C-alpha cells in the first residue's frame, strides 16, 4: 500500500478499543467492532431523513445473497462493483468463552497458529518435519512432569534435547509463508482477532484473486499444521505483557471482569492466564480445533466485486472438501443474578479511572436496542448527557461514557461505564456525578428530541457504514451468527423506531439497581 509505513500488522486477540483524545489509547478490551455495528434503527413514522435513507438500505439488502454448503458451512455475499476489490471474512463461532477450564487463551492461541501454514504451506518437507513436531510434544510433556516432581537435573537434560529438536524442526519451516502469499498477491488488512464470542480471519484482495482466497483459506482449515507452537507461546506471553501486565487499565479491567462474572466464562481474559498459557500443549489446541472449527460453526462473508453464482461454485469446490461434523458443545453455564454491589479497587502507577458495570441480557434479547439507545443518550457526542454534565459543566471527568456488550454480547453481558478523572477531582466525585445521570433515567422520561436524535444517528451510521467492504462483512456476520439472520442488521432499525421514553425508564429501573452493580476503582499509587 501507499503511502505510509505503519507499525506492522499484529495478530491480536482483540481490536483496540476507543481512543480518547488521542492519548488514553487502548481501553476497553473486548469491545468488538462497536463502531459500525451498533447501528440500529429505522423509523415507522418516517421523518424526512428516514424516508430518504431507506431506499438505499433496501437496495443493499437486495444485493445480499446467501447459501449453505451440504456440510453446513454458510456464505453471505454482498455484491459491490464500484471498485475491483473484495473483502473476505471467516467467522468461527467460538471464542474465549468456549475454552475448557484451565485452558484459558486456547482460542486466541489457535488464532495465532492458524497463520503457521498447512501440510503444503509453511514447510519444505512435512513428512520429515512431522516426527520432530511430535517429539517436541513428548518432550514438553516430560519436562512438565519432571518439573512437577522437582527433578531439576532431568529437566535441564530434557530442555537441552528439546532445544535440539526445535532447532532441527525449524530447518523445515518457511516462516510466515501463508501471510507472504496473501501479501504478495496484493492482500491488505491481513489480520485476525479473537474475542470472548468469536474468532475472525480477514483480509481484502484485488477482485481477480477470488479463487486464490478460496484455495488458501480452505486449505488453511482443512489441514492446518500448528508448527512453531512453542515459539509462538513466547510471542503470546509478550502480547499478554503488553496488553495486560504492563498496562494499569489492562490489569484493572481483567480484575473487574472477573469480579462481575463469577460463574459465566465471560469472567476470564481472552488472552489467557499466564499459568494456563504455560501448560497449554498442541493437543489442547488440536482438540479445540476439532470441536469448534467444524463447517456448521463457520460463516463467511464476501463483500465486493464478485458474482454470487461464481462464489457459490468455487465455494463448493473448495470448502465442500470439509466433512460435516457434529454441532460443537454449547456453553451451559449461566451467571446467577447478582445479589449485592461488588467492588474492586487497585492502586497502580496511573492516574485514576472509574468503572461501573451492570448486568444486561444478550444481543438477541428484545431489549437489546433499548440498552443501545440508553448508551447512546448518555455517551454519544457533545450533546450526550455524560459529556454535558461530567465533562463540560462539572468538569470532574476528562471523558465519561458507557457502552453495552462488555466483554461480549452473545451471552448476557454488562453495560459498562467508565470515566477518567479531571485534574483535582476524585473517583468518588466522578462516581456521584455518574450515578446522578444513571438515576435520572429511572426517575424522568427522556425527551422526544433525544430519542429522535438517537434514531436519526443510527440510520445515518448504518448508511455511512455501507461505504466499507470490510465493515459490511463484519456487520452482516455479527447479526447472522448472533441473531440468526443478517437481515437483523437492517431490521433492528424497526425495533428502535418503536422505542418510547417509557421503555427506557423500564429498562433503566430493571437494570440500574445497587445489587446489579460492579464498581472498579483504579487509584494512583504514588511511586
Amino acid at each position: 500500500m501507499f503511502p505510509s509505513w505503519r507499525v506492522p500488522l499484529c495478530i491480536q486477540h482483540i481490536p483496540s478499543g476507543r481512543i480518547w483524545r488521542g492519548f488514553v489509547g487502548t481501553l476497553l478490551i473486548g469491545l468488538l467492532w462497536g463502531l459500525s455495528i451498533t447501528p440500529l434503527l429505522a423509523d415507522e413514522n418516517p421523518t424526512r431523513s428516514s424516508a430518504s435513507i431507506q431506499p438505499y438500505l433496501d437496495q443493499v439488502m437486495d444485493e445480499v445473497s446467501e447459501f449453505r454448503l451440504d456440510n453446513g458451512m454458510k456464505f453471505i455475499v454482498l455484491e459491490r462493483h464500484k471498485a475491483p476489490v473484495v473483502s473476505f471474512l471467516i467467522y468461527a463461532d467460538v471464542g474465549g468463552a468456549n475454552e475448557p477450564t484451565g485452558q484459558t487463551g486456547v482460542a486466541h492461541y489457535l488464532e495465532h497458529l492458524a497463520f503457521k501454514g498447512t501440510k503444503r504451506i509453511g514447510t519444505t518437507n512435512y513428512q520429515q518435519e512431522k516426527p520432530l513436531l511430535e517429539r517436541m510434544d513428548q518432550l514438553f510433556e516430560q519436562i512438565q512432569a519432571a518439573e512437577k516432581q522437582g527433578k531439576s537435573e532431568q529437566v535441564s537434560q530434557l530442555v537441552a534435547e528439546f532445544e535440539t529438536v526445535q532447532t532441527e524442526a525449524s530447518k523445515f519451516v518457511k516462516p510466515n509463508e501463508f501471510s507472504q502469499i496473501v501479501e504478495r498477491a496484493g492482500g491488505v488488512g491481513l489480520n485476525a482477532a479473537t474475542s470472548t464470542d468469536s474468532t475472525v480471519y480477514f483480509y481484502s484482495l484485488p477482485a481477480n484473486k477470488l479463487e486464490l482466497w478460496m484455495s488458501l483459506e480452505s486449505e488453511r482449515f482443512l489441514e492446518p499444521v500448528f508448527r512453531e507452537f512453542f515459539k509462538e507461546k513466547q510471542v503470546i506471553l509478550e502480547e499478554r505483557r503488553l496488553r495486560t501486565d504492563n498496562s494499569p487499565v489492562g490489569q484493572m479491567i481483567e480484575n473487574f471482569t472477573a469480579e462481575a462474572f463469577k460463574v459465566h466464562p465471560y469472567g476470564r481474559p481472552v488472552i489467557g492466564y499466564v499459568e494456563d498459557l504455560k501448560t497449554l500443549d498442541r493437543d489442547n489446541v488440536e482438540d479445540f480445533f476439532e470441536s469448534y472449527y467444524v463447517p456448521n460453526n463457520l460463516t463467511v462473508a464476501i463483500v465486493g466485486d464478485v458474482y454470487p453464482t461464481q462464489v457459490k461454485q468455487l465455494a463448493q469446490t473448495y470448502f465442500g472438501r470439509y466433512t460435516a461434523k457434529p454441532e460443537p458443545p454449547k456453553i451451559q453455564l449461566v451467571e446467577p443474578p447478582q445479589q449485592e454491589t461488588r467492588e474492586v479497587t487497585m492502586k497502580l502507577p496511573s492516574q485514576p479511572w472509574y468503572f461501573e458495570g451492570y448486568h444486561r441480557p444478550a444481543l438477541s434479547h428484545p431489549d437489546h436496542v433499548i440498552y443501545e439507545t440508553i448508551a447512546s443518550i448518555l455517551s454519544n457526542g457533545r450533546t450526550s448527557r455524560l459529556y454535558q454534565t461530567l465533562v463540560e459543566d462539572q468538569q470532574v471527568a476528562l471523558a465519561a461514557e458507557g457502552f453495552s456488550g462488555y466483554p461480549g454480547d452473545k451471552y448476557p453481558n454488562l453495560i459498562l461505564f467508565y470515566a477518567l478523572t479531571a485534574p483535582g477531582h476524585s473517583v468518588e466525585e466522578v462516581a456521584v456525578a455518574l450515578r446522578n445521570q444513571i438515576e435520572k433515567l429511572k426517575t424522568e422520561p427522556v425527551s422526544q428530541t433525544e430519542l429522535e436524535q438517537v434514531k436519526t444517528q443510527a440510520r445515518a451510521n448504518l448508511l455511512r457504514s455501507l461505504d466499507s467492504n470490510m465493515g459490511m462483512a463484519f456487520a452482516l456476520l455479527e447479526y447472522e451468527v448472533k441473531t440468526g439472520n443478517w437481515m437483523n442488521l437492517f431490521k433492528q432499525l424497526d425495533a428502535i423506531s418503536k422505542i418510547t421514553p417509557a421503555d427506557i425508564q423500564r429498562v433503566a429501573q430493571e437494570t440500574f439497581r445497587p445489587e446489579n452493580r460492579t464498581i472498579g476503582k483504579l487509584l494512583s499509587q504514588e511511586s
Partner: protein
Amino acid sequence: MQAQAKFNLRKSKRSLFGLLFATMLLIITWRSPAVASTAKHYTELDFPPLPEIQLPEYTRYQLDNGIIVYLMEDRELPLIGGTALFHTGSRYEPADQVGLASLTGEVMRTGGTADHTADELNQILEQKAAAVETGIGTTAGSAGFSALSEDLEEVFGLFAEVVQEPVFDAQKLELAKTQEKGGIARRNDSPERIAGREFQKLIYGKDSPYARTVEYQTLNNIQREDLVEFYQKYFHPKNMILGISGDFETDKMKALIAEKFGTWKPARTLEIPPEPNTNQVHQGGIYFINQPQLTQSYIEMGHIGGERNNPDYPELMVLNGVLNGFGGRLFNQIRTYQGLAYTVYGIWNANYDYPGVFIAGGQTRSDATVDFLKAVQTELSRVQREPVKPEELSYAKESTLNSFIFNFESPDQTLSRLMLYEFYDYPQDFIFDYQRQVEATTIEDIQRVAQKYLKLDKIVTLVVGNEAEIQPPLSTLDSETKITAIDISIPEPS
C-alpha cells in the same frame, strides 16, 4: 474527517465499461474450465489482469479571494463531505506557548460562532447526524464537514461560519485547557507513550517544534487573545484548499461555495513563516527511563530520516517492505523465529515537508532486552552488508504493486491525495511515479539505499524498562557508551 465518496458509475462510463468487460472476461475464463470443479493448490492458479486504474473525474478552480476548490461528484449514497486545509501548525507556535495551535484548532469549533453558540451548533449538527470538526496538527490545519445530502445547505453554512467567524468562547477555552492538563497528568501512564514521546525529543531535540511537549506552564501562558491572533494569522482564503465529494451537482455546489465563502475578507494579510530547521541533536548513545513496575522493555532506536520527495523514496519504501510486514525480516527473525516480541519494526519514515525518523523497536520481556537490541542491530547491518535475496525483493515489490488498486478504492482517496499534493507542492502524478520506481527497484538499489540512509553509528537507543530486571544489563551492549538516564517527572508551573 475524510470526505465521503463513491465511484460514480454514471459519470465515468469508460471505467464502468472497462470493469464490465474485465468482469466478463473473468467469468468466461473461470467458467470454461470450472466444469472440472477440482480444488487447486495456490501455485496452480492463474489470474486474469485487473482492469486499468481509472481516475474519477473532478473539477478544480479558484475563487477570486484565492480559495482553491476541488469538487468530485459521487452519487452512490446520499452523503456529502468536505475538508479544507490551511498552512499553519504547531511548528509555528511560540516556544513558551506550546499547545496554542492545538487549542486554537479545537476551540475554533467548540467555542461557537458569531451566529450560533456552541450549544446551538452541537444540537443542530447532532440532530442531523452531521458533523463539523476542526483541528491543527504539526504542519497543517483542517476543517471538515459531513452531512446527509438533504442537509447540505444548513450544514455547509455552519461549516462556513466555523471557518470564518469563530468566537473562541473563553469558557470553552478553559474546558480545553483542563483537558490538556489532564493529558499532561496522564502522559506517563503508558510505557509506549513515554517511549514514543521521549524518543522524538532525543532525535529532534527537546525544544524542537517537532518534539516539544505541552506543559502546565506553556498552557498558563496562553490567553484567548492568543488564539484569536493565531487564527487570524493563518485562516485566510489565500491559504485554503477546499475539497468536497459526494452526492451533489457541481454547478449548484459552486454557487453554494460562492455564496458562503466568496465574500470572505481576512482580518490581515497572510504570512507563513519559514519552516523550522531540523537536525539530529544526539549522535548515537543509549538512553534509559527506569519504570520499576514493568516486566517488559519498550524500545525505540533510530536516527533522523527524510522527506517523501527524496529521489530514493520509492527504493526506501521497498527496503521497508523487506524488513517489515508479516514476511519481513524483522518479523520473521525476531518475532517468529526467536519469539522475542509481539511487535517489532524498523521503518524509514518520510514526511512531506520536514525530515521524518528512521525508527526501529518493539517491546520484549525485561531479561531479553539486550538480545532484542542485538537482534535488531544484526538485521540492520545485514541488510547493508549482504544483497537481499531475489524472493525478498519480489515479496516487497509485489506486496506494494499488487495492492496498488487499494489506493483507488473510493474516489475520496484520490481527492484527498490531490489536495495533499497541492498543499505540499508535490507533482499531481506523484503516486504513479512512485509506482514506476518501485517496479524498477533492484537488489543493488536496496543495498545502496540501506548503506546510504541507515546510519548505524548515528542510532540513538531509548529503553523504557525495569532496571533491576534487565539482565544482562544494557551496559553489556557496548562498554564505551555511557547510558544516560532521562527524568520524565512532570514539571509544575512556575
